[in-house]
């Protein structure tokens, strides 16, 4: 039982889909933005850990990662941001999202300890499929942090079983076959896929990659998803207009998601 479990249980009781807001640590005034996200309607926050080679991300998040690294952000710095957030916000789940190498370099056991100390609830490591995540998953399980795995339109039922095994918190359903923020891959039946993943894993399903507008978020929410993830659009708004613009978008997506479900 961690904040993710509690939050998804509460959303279910409220009979609505949740809204997961993604921002990149260190890209702009992220301490200020993080602090304001719960009040603006984010039910769960994904905090991007910048990496030089974000292979599964589209242009918006790639550029944000490089800006963040250029400003001197590190994994230690990202954990410090999280810790400051956690001191003021006891309930909103905080999930780190990024790539394996910085975590591997930090050391899996040391990372688990530091992440627990920072009040982290889950980790999405894009390039650690179930076959490769055992060591990290066990280190995180010991400190009650969930490994959140991805399921995609190409994940068949046999693989869904593998994805389900050892997953906790929620499953991140990638709604297109492409990279984040693009929506140029094959269009798929999202509602049908969400049901399939929910049944196979018994976990809440959050849908992301390519969801950009309040309207798209509402459509996903009304299609049976347990939560909708918006990343690139918030990252772009934050870069273009700063914290205020990003928070306006967060508020309008949150309102649309609440109205839809």
């Amino acid at each position, binding site marked *: 039982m961690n904040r993710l479990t509690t939050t998804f249980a509460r959303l279910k009781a409220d009979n609505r889909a949740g809204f997961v807001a993604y921002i990149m640590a260190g890209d702009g005034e992220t301490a200020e933005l993080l602090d304001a996200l719960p009040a603006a309607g984010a039910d769960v926050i994904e905090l991007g850990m910048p*990496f030089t080679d974000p292979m599964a991300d589209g242009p918006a998040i790639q550029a944000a990662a490089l800006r963040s*690294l250029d400003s001197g952000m*590190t*994994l230690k710095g990202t954990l410090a941001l999280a810790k400051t957030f956690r001191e003021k916000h006891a309930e909103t789940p905080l999930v780190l999202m990024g790539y394996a190498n910085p975590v591997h*370099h930090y050391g899996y056991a040391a990372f688990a300890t530091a992440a627990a100390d920072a009040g982290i609830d889950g980790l999405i490591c894009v390039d650690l*499929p179930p*076959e490769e995540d055992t060591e990290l998953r066990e280190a995180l399980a010991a400190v009650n942090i969930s490994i959140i795995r991805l399921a995609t339109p190409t994940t068949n039922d046999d*693989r869904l079983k593998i994805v389900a095994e050892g997953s906790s918190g929620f499953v991140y359903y990638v709604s297109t*076959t492409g990279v984040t923020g693009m929506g140029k*891959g094959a269009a798929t039946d999202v509602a049908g896929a969400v049901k399939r993943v929910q049944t196979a894993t018994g976990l809440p399903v959050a849908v992301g990659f390519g969801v950009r507008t309040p309207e798209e978020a509402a459509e996903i929410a009304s299609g049976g998803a347990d939560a909708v993830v918006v990343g690139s659009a918030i990252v772009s708004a934050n870069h273009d207009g700063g914290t205020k613009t990003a928070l306006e978008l967060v508020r309008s997506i949150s309102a649309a998601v609440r109205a839809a479900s």
Partner: protein
Amino acid sequence: MTVKPNAFSQYPDAEGRFGEFGGRYVAETLMPNILALEKAYEDTKADPAFTAEFEDFLRHYVGRPSPLYFAERLTEHFGGAQIWLKRDELNHTGAHKINNCLGQVLLAKRMGKTRIIAETGAGQHGVATATVAARFGLPCEVFMGATDVERQAPNVFRMKLLGAKVHAVSSGRGTLKDAMNEALRDWVTYPDETFYVIGTVAGPHPYPMMVRDFQSVIGREAREQMLERIGRLPDAAVACIGGGSNAMGLFHPFLEDESVRLIGVEAAGKGLDTPDHAASLNGGEPGILHGNRTYLLQDADGQIIEGHSISAGLDYPGIGPEHAFLHDVKRAEYVSATDDEALEMFQLCSKLEGIIPALEPAHALARVRDLAAELGPDGVILMNMCGRGDKDVPQVARMLGVEV
């Protein structure tokens, strides 16, 4: 001769691991593709018709077997061991790259894939892939760093002549590793129809194994030719290393020959004591990038550092996982050569042997020089001349202050 138990050549294991290196570190979107590729490759490898087709094209299209040549004047000049060159620079398209492209495109055809993609640094792998794709009538798209597109205009034009579409990658820092990221993104986006031809022994399993297998023709031929020409195996087999495909292709058939030292030469750029080198084994640490766990150039935060080398074919910040393994178990030795040494050997080999080497194997030649002295006149060195230097002539002229 006693038959030794097969040890080093038995890798990777079923999970694609060479000891603690390799593996399949890809996003879930690619996992079904990687697994399907692995299955298709296993089936294909066991099919004699595929092997026959591959060998037929190697012979009549690529021009194999490539000669094994005794470099008499280099031998005299260095004054030590005999130096034998495996002439893979004589292949069609001028380097060893095409061996692998041919194998992968034939596999793509069998898998019913309708679109070929590839990444390229200086453009050699891009040209080789575009060449083979043209031969089999498959549309080909090549991802190349924007900076490299500027610098390597002739190769960009070659690829276009061959019918390929070249994407200038400006994401990230616009270099080879970014081109590889972009190719992976494309593959994630169009997984069903696309075959991604990776150019070196890196990437997720089965690529390091598959590329090695296709390149092993180099070592198999060379081993046989040495026995035929001088009735013995060399004391050392030497090759340059970026990602490591020509070296792996040369080394693999010799892995069980205990008497043969295997020596890989990394690019030391401006020196290993400077930040400007591309020596992942000598100057990097284990990490995870582009689908595998291997030695990488990285900073204290685990961020990837750009490699530097005079040779665009060597400045990749990682190295094939099988090399990482052979390094750790000490079956192979990994040394390095600087930009300046490569430039010196480029000129020396041209003058003494009438062979203009690519800057990549010029690195290997710098260590062959030391080794020749170390082994003395009774020694025999086999070096893979993996590419010809025509592509490097404008750059070398510039560096020597000559206008061409």
